[in-house]
């Protein structure tokens, strides 16, 4: 099952190839350097790709394979709309304060419960959203308990990256993989959630060892937390009920979207439309404008830039190089994909990374099984572990450094505002070992499940 070296000749390295490759590399370099805002780089880079004819506008805007994957965009924007409408109900403040009270104001218990809550919420919401919902309450609780907030913020960010890995909608890389590989919500849950549960448990045992002993507070401070009335924040019970109803419908829709033959974005868009309708929003402009447009346009631009380099054959060339390297050994490729993805995602944004890897893996599959196409190719039994390895590597890898995941960037920013900056080195000191631990577990899981027991 080795790749045919002759396939290399299929990539024509002409002027278009080098122009597109140069654009791609310059765009990546600018994104990594942070000299120019990544959204601006993506929009401008994409427009140049189209203007130069490397990708047509038709492909860029209307081809799911080469251009903007609207399934991803509408899934993201719809979930953002739902959360934006739901945010003022106070439900998230309720959950976080309630968690601290369930923990009886005991610091380590609070850390564990908030981490688990963050992980579970991240499985259904965007990680950044989750962290932005949990972190402010965490800061307040640490103020009340007169505790250093850093360990709490760190553990929450990492828990959010772990939890987000469990489902199709938990983290953008998964959304992108699902859309490209036409995988449904249940497959993600069935293949990723089990190992994430294990990873989360080990993670909590590990933070117990790291932080468990340091955390002590006086009883009178705990009293402050116990006196908080979590029900006080539920200002709009009618909107809350409507939001919870829509959230329930949406999550049920995700569970059954494969059976119902609906795309995840359809489910989310229906949820968003329904909530807009029943919440009686008078001026939807604000709700829509509050969506993270900088992030969404970053996605759109990236899809087009990647479409350009796919079009000229760069991605195909790269896939051939990978196959040459692994000599078509699938277990080896799978492990390389996972570890490479983890370390790559620890240092660069996992969104452009996965946007590049998706077509690369598909091209690799085309080299390996030239006769297969469509779902037979995408869901080839030997290809499936590759998707899961990519998802696990790219999502868990985010924990490696302070810039590995958007959630990390957020908590580092919050810590700095709180007057307790977390240096790049300090984050890595905690993050890197925890990441290696979780990816090791994931590696064992993939090996055992897909190569040893094969179920």
């Amino acid at each position, binding site marked *: 099952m080795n790749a045919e070296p002759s396939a290399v000749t299929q990539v024509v390295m002409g002027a278009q190839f080098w122009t597109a490759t140069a654009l791609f590399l310059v765009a990546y370099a600018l994104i990594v350097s942070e000299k120019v805002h990544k959204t601006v780089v993506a929009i401008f880079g994409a427009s140049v790709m189209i203007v130069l004819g490397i990708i047509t506008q038709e492909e860029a805007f209307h081809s799911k394979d080469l251009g903007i994957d609207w399934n991803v965009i509408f899934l993201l924007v719809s979930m953002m709309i739902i959360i934006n409408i739901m945010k*003022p109900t*106070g439900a998230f*403040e309720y959950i976080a304060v309630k968690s601290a009270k369930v923990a009886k104001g005991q610091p380590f218990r609070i850390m564990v419960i908030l981490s688990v809550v963050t992980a579970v919420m991240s499985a259904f919401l965007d990680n950044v959203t989750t962290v*932005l919902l949990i972190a402010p309450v965490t800061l*307040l609780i640490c103020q009340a308990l007169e505790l250093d907030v850093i360990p709490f913020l760190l553990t929450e960010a990492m828990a959010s990256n772990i939890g987000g890995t469990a489902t199709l909608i938990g983290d953008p890389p998964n959304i992108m993989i699902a859309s490209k590989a036409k995988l449904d919500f249940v497959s993600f849950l069935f293949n990723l959630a089990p190992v994430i549960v294990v990873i989360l448990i080990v993670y909590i045992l590990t933070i117990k060892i790291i932080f468990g002993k340091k955390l002590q507070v006086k009883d009178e401070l705990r009293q402050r937390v116990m006196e908080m009335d979590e029900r006080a924040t539920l200002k709009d019970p009618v909107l809350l009920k409507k939001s919870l109803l829509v959230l329930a419908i949406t999550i049920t829709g995700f569970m059954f979207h494969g059976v119902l033959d609906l795309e995840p974005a359809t489910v989310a868009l229906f949820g968003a439309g329904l909530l807009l309708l029943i919440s009686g929003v008078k001026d939807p402009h604000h709700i829509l404008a509050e969506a993270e447009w900088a992030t969404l346009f970053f996605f759109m631009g990236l899809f087009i830039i990647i479409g350009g380099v796919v079009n000229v054959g760069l991605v195909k060339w790269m896939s051939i190089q990978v196959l040459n390297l692994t000599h078509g050994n699938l277990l080896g490729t799978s492990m390389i994909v996972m570890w490479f993805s983890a370390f790559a995602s620890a240092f660069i944004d996992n969104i452009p990374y996965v946007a590049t890897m998706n077509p690369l893996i598909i091209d690799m599959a085309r080299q390996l099984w030239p006769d297969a196409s469509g779902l037979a190719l995408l869901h080839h039994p030997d290809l499936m572990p590759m998707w899961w390895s990519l998802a696990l590597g790219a999502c868990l890898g985010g924990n490696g450094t302070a810039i590995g995941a958007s959630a990390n960037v957020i908590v580092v920013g919050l810590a700095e505002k*709180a007057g307790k900056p977390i240096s790049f080195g300090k984050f890595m000191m905690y993050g890197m070992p925890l990441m290696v631990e979780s990816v090791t577990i994931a590696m064992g899981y993939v090996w055992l499940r897909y190569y040893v027991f094969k179920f």
Partner: protein
Amino acid sequence: MKARNLMVKARNLMVPLTDYLRPESTIKEAVNMLRSAKRDDERVGVKGLPVLDAGGKLVGILSMGDILKAVYPFYMPMMNLGDFTWDGMVESLARQATDRTVDNIMTKNVITIGENDSLMKCVDQMIKNKVHRLPVLDDSNKVVGMLYERDVFFIIVKAMLEEGKDKEK
């Protein structure tokens, strides 16, 4: 016409600059300054003062609101957390903020007005930027006075109450 114009430019309504803060002052010093500053003959104490550096350049403005913000945790406005505060929180945060300096807590993006700007431009700046006082600059960008919302208010009140008598002025 000339005589009337004299009344309606920023420079005619401003309080000439007498008191101001230094960026390196502590909050304590600033608070004392705010409490003792002369605003006009009949009253004492102001809600805001400009901050000038050693060269006399305007670098910020400090108001009561800024001092409130200095003890207000940055994470509070991110969500609805007002219900989860505790008694003594403000005081305890205030004690922690004592050693901060003026340049740390002042508003750095100062909205100013030129001394020859019209009264409506002053109102425009105040309302658009939601500020209640404007440092008045001369042509060389030097602060020559402060224009307070209260004084604009009195001009409006005067026009409202003495409707029709305007021409005699």
